[in-house]
């Protein structure tokens, strides 16, 4: 190794070192702007009140023009024998035994897109076909979609369904939060249809307060936890139940936002494009310096 090469390698190392220190300074600016989730819309689902009438399923079906099923289809109680998931035919489904008290004290609850505050699907989407709007809605633009289904991989609630049967224009199907309705100061179709007020629509901040008031007023009726208040950074749809409901239809989740898992890695690698550029510069210097060495060696060989 001659002097020139050592100098080059030193310079190269310095470049890499600079690149790794510099980005940490600008870290704060890359953090997501905190949004005002208290004023976004949300729904509180009180599973202790739900009677399993499936009116919400019917209303959702009609509002979103999903199927041609007759009304009687939604009055069939045998569906409770199995555990259903949302599908391309139903954005929401009601399952029985929503809480862990499975045999005695049967209870019901509906599941649908939770419209997370920090949605994993939105972070995953390659073209920004999924977006989080200011009303709290996670909405989908089929025109942009390329059909990679990474959103389905990312969703911790296993909600998005895919129109596999469509050969040409398959869509990702999930609850729209009746965006058109709530945009015009109306309630979502399912909330409107609920005969027992198991669903409460309102500002997310008010709903959280409301939920805790309910728990305090009847501590024997409720398990002391509002599901969705803090899970994965909070969700627009939240749940109350009479027992710990981390079992059947809702997964056990930490408070950490899911997008930060991947985005911290991504933004670490791509911070102002410095790490890739530093690697490029480093390799370029290595390549150049070794080449110079070889040339000199060859010249020396020729001379001797």
């Amino acid at each position, binding site marked *: 190794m001659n002097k020139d090469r050592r100098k080059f390698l030193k310079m190269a190392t310095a470049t890499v070192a600079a690149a790794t220190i510099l980005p940490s300074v600008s870290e704060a600016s890359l953090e997501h702007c905190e949004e005002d989730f208290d004023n976004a819309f949300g729904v509180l689902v009180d599973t202790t009140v739900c009677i399993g009438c499936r009116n919400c399923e019917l209303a959702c079906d009609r509002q979103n023009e999903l199927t041609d099923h007759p009304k009687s289809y939604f009055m069939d109680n045998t569906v409770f024998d199995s555990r259903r998931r949302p599908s391309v035919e139903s954005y929401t489904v009601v399952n029985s035994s929503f809480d862990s008290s499975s045999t005695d004290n049967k209870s019901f609850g509906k599941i649908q897109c939770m419209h997370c505050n920090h949605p994993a699907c939105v972070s995953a989407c390659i073209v920004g076909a999924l977006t989080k709007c200011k009303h709290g809605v996670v909405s989908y633009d089929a025109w942009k979609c390329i059909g990679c289904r990474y959103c389905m991989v990312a969703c911790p609630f296993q909600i998005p369904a895919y129109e*596999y049967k*469509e050969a040409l224009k398959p869509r990702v199907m999930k609850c729209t939060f009746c965006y058109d309705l709530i945009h015009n100061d109306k309630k979502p179709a399912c909330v409107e249809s609920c005969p027992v007020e198991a669903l409460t629509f309102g500002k997310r901040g008010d709903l959280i307060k409301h939920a805790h008031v309910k728990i305090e007023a009847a501590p024997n009726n409720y398990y002391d936890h509002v599901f969705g208040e803090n899970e994965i950074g909070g969700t627009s749809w939240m749940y109350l139940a009479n027992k710990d409901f981390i079992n059947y239809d809702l997964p056990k989740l930490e408070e950490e936002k899911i997008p930060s898992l991947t985005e911290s890695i991504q933004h670490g690698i791509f911070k102002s494009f410095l790490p890739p550029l530093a690697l490029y510069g480093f390799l370029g210097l290595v390549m150049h310096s070794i080449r110079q060495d070889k040339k000199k060696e060859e010249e020396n060989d020729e001379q001797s």
Partner: protein
Amino acid sequence: MTNSHEVPTPINVKYFSKGAIVLSFLTLIGLCGYIYRLIVGLDASTNLNNQFPWGIWIAIDVASGVALAAGGFTTALLADVFHKDKYHSLTRPALLTAMLGYTFVVVGLLADLGRYYNVWHPMIPSMWQGNSVLFEVGLCVMIYLNVLYCEFLPILIEKFMGHVNLPGILSRYNSLVESLLRISNRTLYRVLSLFIIAGVVLSCLHQSSLGTLMVIAPYKMHPLWYTPILPLLFLLSAISVGFPMVIFESILSAWSFKLKPETKTLASIAKYTPFLLFCYLSIKLGDLAIRNAFGYLTEINIQSVAFVLEIGIGVILPMVLLFQKSKRHSIKYLFISACCIIFGILVNRINVFLIAYTPPFSNDFYFPSLIEVIVTVGLISGLILIYRFMVIHLPVISVQRVKFNIVTDTPKSKATIKG
């Protein structure tokens, strides 16, 4: 640059050997399956469902395909960036594999995309989504594919420059094409190193980001594989499989074209592999220990068996073999080790994308359909066929001229040097 006795040369053999005929048959079946999928859609052609949205087209065609094409950038790094000139004979076959590999990754991906005709969307700035890992992977793969095409151009130029002979009426453009080739040859010669380094950087980026993809599903991934250092493991395993893939191909080509295998060069390049595997293994096991996940190996289920298979046959066995100098100098053991490592990578990518993917609420499970299998097999067969076509017609494989004459004297050899 090239050693004086080693010159990349087209190989003069009959194209349709027995193997090539079988592969053509498989490719044709795969093509039918591919067209069938485009016509009838994903439901009729695959076993994908709402709980298991990704199948073997992602795990094998895309994820494994990208990893197994890593020979391209690792060989370029060693031979071109670090100027280890003795490996120069391996760069062209590795480059060709990478170019074809990535091309077929894109072809395979198109089959899986629900709206394959929208595949260009991520290139439109208004649809850029910088938070998406998939966006980064997609963009890197696309740019890298073009870099690979540029790196491959000199081989085409070498073939045609000096004897451009267009048919019929086009022959009047002969001199024009000729001068175009000369200009691009001169330009490429100057900027080729820029492309080579870009290829290495882009590869490091998307090889690791392929691992980041599954970091977004912590509640669905089996703890044996879920770790925030998945990107590091993906990058290290891709680098580790680079040289074994080159060895694997080189031995297969030598066998198929009845050439003398470059035992010395292959044994030499194989000496890096056990150290890379050792790094990979220690980080992987260290990570398991830190996360307290070893306990999951005591449960006997598909996950634990798949994990032991991946590590035992795919990493430990070839590592032990290749640490021994005598085994490295035996073509048989070189080939066995390379096969083990390639198998290990394939199983690892299938494990991460399919076996580890265990969503809590699922009534169904995923097992590939017949169409998915024949399309995957067809794509691999098609890749080998095009590879064979290219090495027969283009200067890719280096034939040792001096030693080669000795080989041609043996009755077994059928190959002769073209031109």
